[in-house]
């Protein structure tokens, strides 16, 4: 600030901001190319979206080349690669958008009937209309088995994480390696393992067996997420506690773990999101039952993914409607779990 009176402060500007004027040619190219490709598709009878894409990509590449020609080689390459990356990203997002759209639009049909969440399929069959029967048995079963898995996995996962980050035991490299490898165990193998032990031992399918199979799949997710979370605890905190004369177990239980409480919860939530929709292990352990059961030890138990899988194979129109509705329930569950996890993950940071 000099002594002389200054002119009023100018308004902040961002000269590097991309203005509509600058993108106009690009947008024009995209739109023109899209229309032209559409015309070619209609005229030549190429198949739907894929045919359109086959025509659109070359048009967009040539167009980009022409547009950036004046700016030199580096800018041209940059523009073309940029175009390619955007196209590739578009292709890679297309399936999930299509999937979400279909699940929502098809799933609402059955889900908007109250009976879909309040009754089971004990007295309803695949040919019954959507105002009869529902997914209550599957909801209850999934909740039961996921709870069993969570109750087993959370303590084990946190202990594993504490072993690796706090106790720093001799085998921590091996333990991390094993956890990493376990995350690659195919879900059907986890199912086979529980089948060959629990199911063969009890001589029947059960919710307990299903829960145990899911636990095998959930453990690595929980352990790894919890480990990441514990690593974020600053060492100062531990030093402070040790300097006050606290032993390690008090430091861990009363200083380290409480600071990452929501992080630990997050690890559990992500673990649940990982297993809630698993079908293959349940096929071999919990199997499927049409009625609502609350007992984890007395025979087969239904679950949302198994219900969906069965509906899919029976193939009637109403079955498909129910299958879409189940899918919608599963996606809603995943969405809710992720949203909670995201909301929580910001909480531990100060």
């Amino acid at each position, binding site marked *: 600030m000099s002594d002389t009176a200054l002119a009023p402060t100018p308004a902040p500007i961002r000269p590097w901001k991309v203005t509509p004027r600058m993108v106009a040619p690009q947008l024009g190219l995209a739109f023109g190319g899209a229309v032209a490709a559409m015309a070619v598709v209609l005229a030549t009878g190429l198949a739907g979206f*894929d045919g359109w894409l086959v025509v659109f990509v070359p048009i967009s590449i040539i167009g980009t080349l022409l547009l950036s020609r004046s700016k030199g080689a*580096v800018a041209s390459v*940059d523009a073309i*690669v940029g175009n390619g*990356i955007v*196209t*590739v*990203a578009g292709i*890679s997002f297309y*399936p*999930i958008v*299509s*999937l979400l759209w279909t*699940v929502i639009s098809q799933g609402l049909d059955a889900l908007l009937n109250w009976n879909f969440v309040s009754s089971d399929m004990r007295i309803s069959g695949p040919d019954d209309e959507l105002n009869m029967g529902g997914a209550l048995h599957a909801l209850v079963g999934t909740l039961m088995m996921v709870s069993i898995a969570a109750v087993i996995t959370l*303590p084990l996962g946190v*202990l*594993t994480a*504490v072993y690796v980050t*706090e*106790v720093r035991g001799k*085998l921590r490299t091996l*333990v991390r*390696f*094993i956890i*990493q*490898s*376990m995350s*690659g*165990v*195919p879900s*059907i*193998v*986890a199912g*086979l*393992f529980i089948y*060959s*032990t629990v199911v*063969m031992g009890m001589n029947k399918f059960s919710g307990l067996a299903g829960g145990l199979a899911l636990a*095998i799949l959930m*453990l*690595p997710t929980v352990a790894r997420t919890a480990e990441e979370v514990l690593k974020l605890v600053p060492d100062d905190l531990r030093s402070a506690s040790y300097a006050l004369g606290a*032993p*390690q*177990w008090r430091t861990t239980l009363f200083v380290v773990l409480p600071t990452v409480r929501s992080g630990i919860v997050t690890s559990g939530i992500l673990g649940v*999101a*990982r297993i*809630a*929709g698993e*079908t*293959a292990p349940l*096929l071999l352990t919990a199997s499927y039952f049409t009625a609502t059961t609350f007992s984890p030890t007395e025979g087969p138990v239904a679950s949302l*993914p198994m219900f*969906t*899988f069965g509906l*899919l194979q029976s193939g009637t129109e109403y079955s498909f409607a129910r299958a879409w509705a189940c*899918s919608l329930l*599963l*996606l809603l569950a*995943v969405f809710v779990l*992720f949203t909670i996890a995201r909301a929580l993950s910001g909480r531990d940071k100060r």
Partner: protein
Amino acid sequence: MGAVVDSGSERAVPLNVPAKREIVARSSRGDRIFRGIVSAGALSSLVLLGLIAVFLIVRSGEIFGRFGLDFIFSSDWTAGAEADGSDSTFGVWAMLIGTIIVSLIAVIVALPLAVGAALFIEFYLPERLRSAVRMLVDISAAVPSVVYGLWAVSIFSGAASSWGELLHKFAGWFPLFGVENEQYDRSPFVAGLVLAIMITPIITSVSREVFSRTPPDLVNASYALGGSRWGAIRNVVLPYGSSGVVGGTMLGLGRALGETVAVYLVLNLVFKPNFRILESQGGNVASLIATKFGEASQYEIKALLAAGFVLFVLTMVVNMAATYIVQKKSPLES
């Protein structure tokens, strides 16, 4: 301390340097109990993985004992009526080959899509849309496979088989794209594409994460030298993130190898090795287990457990390789 000054050419040997003291920290009883509990919990995962291998092999030992390597290298799967299995023959070769083919198709298609999407999210997408798209990717990685299967059966597989037909029409001279019967649905190609769609978000998510951790210093250096966005990506981001991309790809490959339900729904299982990927016949170990399990005899169940063990070993090898690569080739740090 009296240092001996030696003016000679030899290095002075200092005297009176005490031996290093060993620091012994006796832990309290509380700590010992605590460590015991924690270690027991942590080692449970080790024990569990061991148990999986042991139980699968013990329960299926009879099969390996009887068929030996033929179980892996032959393709005949006939379940007889006899309870002792004397009229049964089991071999997973076609299924194993099929699993690898389908997974490779998935990885080959998914890798470029995922890297493109990851670069797009981190370097092309406007900042304020970024977190929403990241969430979309994370959710698509968590969409249950049965939902993917449902979508594939009702929406996607029709388009995919028509692409297969087109591919045959224009590139049928290439052995992989040849066909004997003009039937293009439920082919390894279709199943591979479905798997590709399922693992793309997994690879995208991991790649995106490592790309976003590229040191800004290096990106800035690239820009300060007059480099373009692509220049920065090619010279800094890709070399830095390559190990992460490899790790993510291996993770996706592992997932593809073990995927059951989605493949079951879109692949026609035939017990004959088939390399014509557009044709409606393929193999898959996990789908084999799901298909045969319902009506299997006690003896055939043992064979399915043996097949499960083979799949387990295959995925473990891929995963351990992935872990090793990622740890060995972690991003260069200056």
